């Protein structure tokens, strides 16, 4: 067992974990943050995407012990004050989700994308989401959702 201390969605947590525990397992099992999903075992699908120290990462490919001392944001912490994040709002406005399973990871990846590139082209968005599988939407409305969010965020800034 190793002791880890980390901040998840602005709250500090401290736990003993087996070193082999994945961050995704830790978030889901220990903290009951089940919005982070596990869809594969090869770091391919992106359903488990969370933000770690301001970067979108695949929490199924990070050990909880590696996250010791980090700040994590999960989908549950993306909208801290009940106000939806622009990307969340965009997914709702543009029907960017169907079954919802990939959605949380997709939103976390898209939020990171817009953080780095507030005015992405369609190609930027498609390239930026290549680490996230969706089997429901054909990505069409996901791209539109991210475009909607980009526009909404830029309007907010201007």
């Amino acid at each position, binding site marked *: 067992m190793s002791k880890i201390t980390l901040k998840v969605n602005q709250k500090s947590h401290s736990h003993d974990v*087996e070193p*082999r525990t994945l961050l995704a*397992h830790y978030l*889901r099992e220990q903290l*009951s*943050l*089940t*919005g*982070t*999903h*596990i*869809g*594969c*075992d*090869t770091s*391919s*699908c992106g*359903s488990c995407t969370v933000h770690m120290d301001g970067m979108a990462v695949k929490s199924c490919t990070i050990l909880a012990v590696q996250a010791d001392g980090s700040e994590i944001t*999960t*989908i*549950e912490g*993306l*909208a801290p004050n009940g106000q*939806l994040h622009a990307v*969340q709002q965009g*997914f*709702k*406005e543009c*029907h960017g*989700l*169907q*079954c*919802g*399973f*990939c*959605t*949380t990871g997709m*939103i976390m990846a898209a939020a990171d994308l817009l953080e780095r590139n507030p005015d992405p082209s*369609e*190609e930027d*968005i*498609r*390239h930026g*989401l*290549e680490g*996230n*599988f*969706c*089997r*429901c*939407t*054909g*990505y*069409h*409305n*996901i*791209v539109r959702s991210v475009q909607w969010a980009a526009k909404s965020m830029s309007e907010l800034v201007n």
Partner: protein
Amino acid sequence: MSNKYIGQSVKRVEDKRFITGKGRYTDDIKLLGMTHASFVRSPYAHARVTSIDISAAESMPGVVAIFTGDDIKETGIVGVPTGWQVNFKNGDTMKEPPHPLLIATGSTAKHIGDPVAVVIAETYAQAVDAAEAVEVDWEDLEAVTDPFKATQEGATLVHDDSPGNLAFDWELGNPLDEVNAAIDASAHVTTLEFVNQRMVPNAIEPRSYIGHYDEVSDKYTLYTSTQNPHLIRLLMCAFVLGLPEHKVRVLGPDVGGGFGSKIFHYTEEALVTWASQQTKRPIKWTETRSEAFMLDAHGRDHVTKAEMGFDGEGNVKALRIKTYANLGAYLSTFGPAVPTYLHGTLLQGLYTTPKIHIDLCGVFTHTVAVDAYRGAGRPEATYLLERLMDLAALEMGKDPVELRKQNFIPAFDGVEQPGYQTQVALQYDSGNYHGVVDKAMKMLDYKKFREMQQEAAQNGKLLGVGFSTYIEACGIAPSAVVGSLGARAGLYESAQVRVQPTGKVSVYSGSHSHGQGHETTFAQIVADKFGIPMEDVDIVHGDSDAVAFGMGTYGSRSLAVGGSAIMKSIDKVLEKGAKIAAHKLECAADDLEFAEGKWTVKGTDKHIGFGDVALTAYVPHVYPEGLEPGLDFASFYDPANFTYPFGCHIAVVEVDKETGKVKLQRFIAVDDVGNVINPMIVDGQIHGGLAQGIGQALLEGAIYDDYGQLVNGSYMDYAMPRADDLPMFELDRQETPCPHNPLGVKGAGEAGTIGSTPAVVNAVIDALWSGGHKVKDIAMPLTGERVWRAMQSS
């Protein structure tokens, strides 16, 4: 009624929980005292269990129990059943070998991943660790994976009592000699021998189950990521475990995609339920993606020879087909129905072909079961027809669009004009096939495209356009019809509409949403019919205790069948409501009209609101004599016919001349799915369907080696479309109402998948011809290598 919601792109009410991470999938659920299961599985496609030793595993930390196939055998549990029976041509009964929950000693595993034991432990990690410590001795046997080879002399048998590995053989259409004669008399015959490859559905949520037996109430609860909770309860109780149905509750919480793969009543569902009773602890099992690849029912997998005969003018005269359909090692719920009644019956397509015959073998192989995968049989039929059409056009030097249109069934609405009777058993409800093609061609700007194509060819670039038209049979299905075809269940749907005393409405639907947005679409209908705000409507589904009954969601049936059941209950509410209103307004019910949420005495402004009537129904102080209190109706709707959506899809591709790599540039889809309740949701269904169909054309396909190993059983190896593989889709719609259901809807869930695959393949072939490569066919998926090789060889 009002039309405030119907026809509008109302934003989905279910989204809130999903975008905030509050969706509740089975794996998100934790029960007190819950344990975890991990399975010991066959590494071989065909091998006999010679011995199994659990002693080392039993003493591993955290182990609660270990069950083997021998334990199951002792209980007398035989295994999971199929939902359809398709008998042999000669009347012999379909071969239906047992599909055991666990393989017992002395028996054989029949595909990779077939389970022999299950380990139940306190934690997931402990279960996995202990499962690895179970020692199994195997006698590795020869395997067969190809459905054609499996039927040949000397092929190893999957089941000892299924000679030739046949589950059944089957035919449909006109007498074979008539079709033979028509082919022989044809001026031109186009022939294609091809494989419609095996697809892995790949719902992003892996299957997950929790079995929970409660000793105090002697009740079982199964949480399952399924498309049809009631069906699972029925099959598990009546056919597998022999449990009293009223003591079993099946819950399908949020389900992360199904695409057909979550129809099947899987062995693990029964096993965790049974084992929970043994251990008196809740048991969760969530599959890994590796397991999902091995175990979730696959789709397609046909080996086909098809011949289409034309007269000198290009009119289709005959169609003759021989198909070997791979069913896998065991029969899935819809397994026997997919290649037969969902495939053979669609071979008329949109054409007036006068003579059609299909001969089909349903074949066992050492592969995982094949079941309904998005489109289920209909994509295979469409692929066959639309590849033949395009190839015939190329061979005869005709325009592929004109050739299709020349052979189309003329428009008919199913009301003034009768439905169209096909040569393959179905009667189409309504259709206007030229309409969708003309729309799509306008979007393409065909003339301009051909000019661009020529110009590209001169610059050494290969551009291509591919067409596809399709028809599908959805809204499954009339129970009497499917019953006569071998279905072991009715395919109606149930719905209960409960008007609460305050006028709020709860709807209990037997349909199940795993992404389709039922909570929104159904609420739109109910709100409009009652003239109340959508917020006042709640849709409940996925709970066998709350919902009376249900057949679930597949085959694009939720709105056409489930929605119609809701309509029936709505009508009953309105009819009774009118009686109450009439009593209060002191008039006859016939004098009332219902609109905008109130009953009004015709020609006056005397009225009473929906809410007042609801309250009166529950507080019946002033009430019609002899009328029961309450406003709560359940209905069952059994459709009169299938529904028949259709459409036209066009793909534009560029082929890299040097590498064969295909880039999809444009995709146009004009679909006619009947009336549309929520255009946004319908478009979303089409988009997703397109991606799966395009995926089959260009990227996907399960590959079993000769030993039955799935060699691309991971996302590192199995290519599935990602965001940057696809363009924005160009969609339009035509609305030809379905004449036989109250909403006039036809179903949109599978259309995209059905139409898109041949359009893409046709486009690639067209691109190659534009560069002088007269290639007739390329096997799917059209990988760079396959396209490159096709160019090399022509």
